């Protein structure tokens, strides 16, 4: 007899991801196998040039939507064949950068019933980095090395330094491949000059990127993606267990070969489609620039893909949870690294973070906030004083600027905006819920900002003297008030005074009084924030 599945449960083991990328439409259907591996059942690729529209006019033309929907409906048909119920449709740069994205998404929804979710750049990269880390950490060899991870999107270049199994630093730089085409415009026609100009243009980024990097020398440059795989093939890269390794020399040799050729010549020579050849030159240029910046032995190409990350997230719940936790750790680590770049007061930051966590966790029922705000609060605690490096005067404003223009893996730019505002207002006197000047934040974001801010201000006040006076605090939410028990043997008049000045805002935000109460000095050391 046929081994028939008992119920429809097997459909729960399949998922599909549709991606609207700047160079095409992609769809993958996958199944979770019992050994926790991902089995790709279908992989569809339909080339489609959105990017040119987006980067040249800032908009996607409406007539492209029609064609897009036709293709998407084809994908849907394949997805339905497997009776997949969980479908995630994501869009990256092409829609992210288009000013009419919301209308396009609505039209796509009307014609295909697909809900398109625009993946923020930071989110896209955190998926990719997460996937890259997974691959790297599975390798006993590479996981111990210092690495520079690079991910070239059509709109931007993401780089991250990696050491001892986690990310030290990450930054997004707005030099994507199509960006290059946009900038260079008509120069595409004259290819002999094109490669020269690309290089000159890119070299202007060299110094700023170099100065950002915590490590100036790494063992390898690690990358992933279709294009670098193609480059690896052109360089006759060595392949081992799905990893491709390109030596410096092989890379530069290949670059010399190709740099003065037209895309047609490249296409003919390497038997690749001309459209792909066209995109290869900017990729070559960017990798070359990175090799100029950082000392390294070779480029390592690893099999990490955004789609895999999305599919795994949908299919493996436990793993997704753990990944989320890992990513939080990475966010915190990056925040600390950012703090270090501005010589922040590590001790103070740590204490404030601790107090924030006590307050946050002790008030769960009152603020009703979840895990993301908790993370944002911690990041705000770590970085609230980073601006002091620039000047003590208006340091909160400097902190705001530092945070809002940074990129922290695992935090979206909206979240970072909230964090930045929390930092900006953390030391403001006479703060009132009406005068926060939160600019472009939404109502929900403003309320969130206020809640985090109220907590951070109390925590900051508790370490007003920036000296380790307090052993431990305990937080109790009573029906009539929030009671903060301060365990210490030292004099805390300054802290009490400082808190006094912040409670009004706190009460305004939460509708509860906050009262300090002195507790016994504690032998038990205060917990330190993990991660």
């Amino acid at each position, binding site marked *: *007899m*046929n*081994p*028939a*599945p008992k119920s429809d449960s*097997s*459909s729960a*083991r*399949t998922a599909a991801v549709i991606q609207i990328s700047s160079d095409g439409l992609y*769809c993958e259907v996958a*199944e979770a*196998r*019992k050994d926790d591996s991902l*089995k790709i*059942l*279908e*992989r*569809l*690729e*339909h*080339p489609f040039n959105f990017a040119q529209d987006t980067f040249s006019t800032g908009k996607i033309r409406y007539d492209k939507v029609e064609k897009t929907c036709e*293709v998407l409906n*084809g*994908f849907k*048909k*394949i997805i*339905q*064949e*497997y*009776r997949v119920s969980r479908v995630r449709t994501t869009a990256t740069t092409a829609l992210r950068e288009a000013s009419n994205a919301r209308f396009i998404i609505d039209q796509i929804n009307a014609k295909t019933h697909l809900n398109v979710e625009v993946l923020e750049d930071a989110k896209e990269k955190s998926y990719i980095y997460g996937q890259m880390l997974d691959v790297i950490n599975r390798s006993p060899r590479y996981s111990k090395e210092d690495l520079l991870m690079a991910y070239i999107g059509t709109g931007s270049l993401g780089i991250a330094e990696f050491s001892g199994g986690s990310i030290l630093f990450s930054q997004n730089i707005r030099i994507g491949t199509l960006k290059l085409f946009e900038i260079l415009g008509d120069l595409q026609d004259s290819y002999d000059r094109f490669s020269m100009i690309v290089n000159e243009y890119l070299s202007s980024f060299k110094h700023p990127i170099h100065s950002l990097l915590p490590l100036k020398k790494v063992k390898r440059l690690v990358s992933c993606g279709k294009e670098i795989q193609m480059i690896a093939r052109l360089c006759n890269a060595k392949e081992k267990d799905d990893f491709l390794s390109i030596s410096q020399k092989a890379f530069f040799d290949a670059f010399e070969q190709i740099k003065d050729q037209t895309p047609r010549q490249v296409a003919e020579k390497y038997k690749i489609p001309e459209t792909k050849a066209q995109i290869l030159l900017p990729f070559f240029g960017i990798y070359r620039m990175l090799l100029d910046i950082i000392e390294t032995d070779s480029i390592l190409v690893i099999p990490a893909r955004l789609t895999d990350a999305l599919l795994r997230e949908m299919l493996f719940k436990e793993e997704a949870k753990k990944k989320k936790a890992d990513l939080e750790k990475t966010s915190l680590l990056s925040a600390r690294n950012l703090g270090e770049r501005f010589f922040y007061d590590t001790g103070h930051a740590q204490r404030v973070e601790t107090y924030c966590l006590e307050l946050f966790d002790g008030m769960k029922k009152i603020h009703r906030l979840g895990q993301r705000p908790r993370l944002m609060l911690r990041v705000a605690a770590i970085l609230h004083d980073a601006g002091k490096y620039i000047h003590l005067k208006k340091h909160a404003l400097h902190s705001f600027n530092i945070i809002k223009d940074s990129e922290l893996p695992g935090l979206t730019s909206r979240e970072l905006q909230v964090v930045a505002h929390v930092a900006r207002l953390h030391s403001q006197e006479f703060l009132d819920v009406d005068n926060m000047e939160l600019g472009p934040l939404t109502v929900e974001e403003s309320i969130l900002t206020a809640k985090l801010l109220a907590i951070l201000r109390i925590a900051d006040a508790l370490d007003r003297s920036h000296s380790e006076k307090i052993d431990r605090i305990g937080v109790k939410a009573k029906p009539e008030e929030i009671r903060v028990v301060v365990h210490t043997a030292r004099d805390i008049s300054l802290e009490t005074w400082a808190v006094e000045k912040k409670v009004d805002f706190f009460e305004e935000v939460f509708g509860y009084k906050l009262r300090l109460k002195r507790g016994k000095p504690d032998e038990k050391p205060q917990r330190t924030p993990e991660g």
Partner: protein
Amino acid sequence: MKNPNEPRKDKEQNLFFNRELSWLDFNFRVLEEAMDTRNPLLERIKFLAITGSNLDEFFMIRVAGLMEQVEAGYTGRDLSGRTSRQQLEEISQKVHLMVKNQYNCLVRSILPALKKEKVFFLGIKDLDPDQVESLDHYFRSTVFPVITPMAVDQGRPFPQLPNKSLNQAVYLKGPEKEELLAVVQVPSVLPRFVPVSLEEGQGYILMENVIAHFASLLFKGYHVEGMVPFRLTRNADLSIDEDDAQDLLVEIEKSLQQRRSGFPVRLEIAHKAKPRLRDALLHMLEIESGDVYEVPGPIDLSAWMKLTALPGKEALLFEHVAPRPVPALYDQPSVFDVVRDKDVLLHHPYQSFEHVLDFLKEAARDPNVLAIKQTLYRVSGNSPVVETLMEAAQNGKQVTVLVELKARFDEENNIQWARKLEKAGCYVVYGLVGLKTHCKVLLVVRREDEGIARYVHLSTGNYNDSTARLYTDIGLFTSNELFGGDASSLFNVLTGYSLPPQWKVFSVAPLGLRDRFLDLIRREAQFAREGMGARLIFKVNSLLDQTIIQELYKASQQGVQVDLIVRGICSLRPGLPGVSDNIRVVSIVGRFLEHSRVFYFENAGSPEVFLGSADMMPRNLDRRIETIFPVLDESLRNQLLGFLELQLSDTLRARQADAQGAYRFVDGRGKEAVDSQHRMIQWAKELFQQRGEEELKPLFQPARHRDEG
């Protein structure tokens, strides 16, 4: 008939044979089978009729194409160095010889043999008055109403005669002695062979003779001076502008109209026609004398196929051979269950095509099957394949059918059932612009406990239950995920959903199939250079691709033993000193049409065998979607090698080509008499009888070709 032993002058200065002449040689080989008195009489008539319909197609497509080239002033040369005009001249010569041989065969050999079987072909003068009387009745009641004589004069231009229709040209004189030409179409709705009751045996009179006899009834007031049957063949190559076609289906329907009125390419006319009539016809049809074939007997040999269904004469046919079940699948409730564990190979027509239908039916009804996808190129009338796909769609399966509307001469048929499938809820697609979908793939996606499983059937031949009894083809069932993945991807390409992927096991034309072949041939040559025994065996229907032939020459020069089993066109010249010494070309023409494509590479002791849908012709490699796939199971691979060796050792139906392109029966002296098709019949039978011991029975124990040791 050309004498196979007569030495042929070396006209070929080139390294390649001409395609058309090579094809005509193939048709001569079929004619040999019609001549061969070892074959049963009605089978010989079949072979003869096939040579006739083959020639019809040849004129409608190939000759028409060459004429268009000449018309367009194209002066390029083919592989063999001939211009189009030269080719037409040589074709004309060769076909004239062929026609002579065909009618020799019919008149001198087959008709007398039929007479011995008491089947008589009669003229009016052979009939007694009673018989004429009943014929008269038949004419007046049945024939007369469907005949429309058409007079030709200045006011009435020459009528548009349908392609391949049989007509009578009539030369008339009126009451004022005025001359008139008329045309009468022999009605195609009535039987060509009009039965005449005899006391003993069966008599027939040809319809055109009946019409001739009663012609005066058609032209009252005129005197019939002379009559002659003729048949016109037209250009039937469809020209479809796919790029601008909004709806391919509609576009093809339109162009089918054109086929009826393509320009004339051949005139067959009864010999001894009055010169006056003959010249008038030539003039009106604008046809050149080289394209006129005077036929010493009844025109249109393809019509004789009808006669092979003579009731009560089954003894004059080949002994009926029932296709045998494949032991692995015999009596199994589920094909899935068998194929989940192992690959299964099917040799049609020796083994049953029913297994494929069973598989499809099971898929249509199994609640766990999610999707069925299939390519269809030619299907039989009332095809059970089409019926089952419709049933599957009605059962809620996702059914995707790739229908090739451009399958030559099946276009009309295909349009009809494509519509039927659509109506039943199947998702029907017509393939990619400019490319015919020729690959044979059936994919079933099924939900199982372990997850999604894919079952694939791949074949060298069409999903056609009728031709599966006549054509030799090989099919493979597999549940190997690499095949399933490639099959899925292939359909995604064909439906236009996706770009081609990196294939895992398939090689797909036009995306690098030729390169794949070249690489494999080169690899073999490399082994030869390194002093290893190197060998390749290809079995195809046609070998025409210049690049591949040149690579084969190189391989031969490096010492690769190249055995080619090419049924039809072969442009490669075997046995040319210094060029192709190590190449042997064999053609097998027998009761079944050799159709499977098999590619064997010795690969330094780790043999690789591929099956597929592609011939080695530019059209297959450049303008069609074809797939070639490996057979990975070792025992199946050995089975296929055995099959190839068997064909190469055929002494009864195999002809070997020489360097001049002449095909001779292989010299069987001192060898075991082998009819490879007959052996396959035996093999399938024995395999089935001793099922369970499948592995024990090698298909064929090859005699060593090289010196031992």
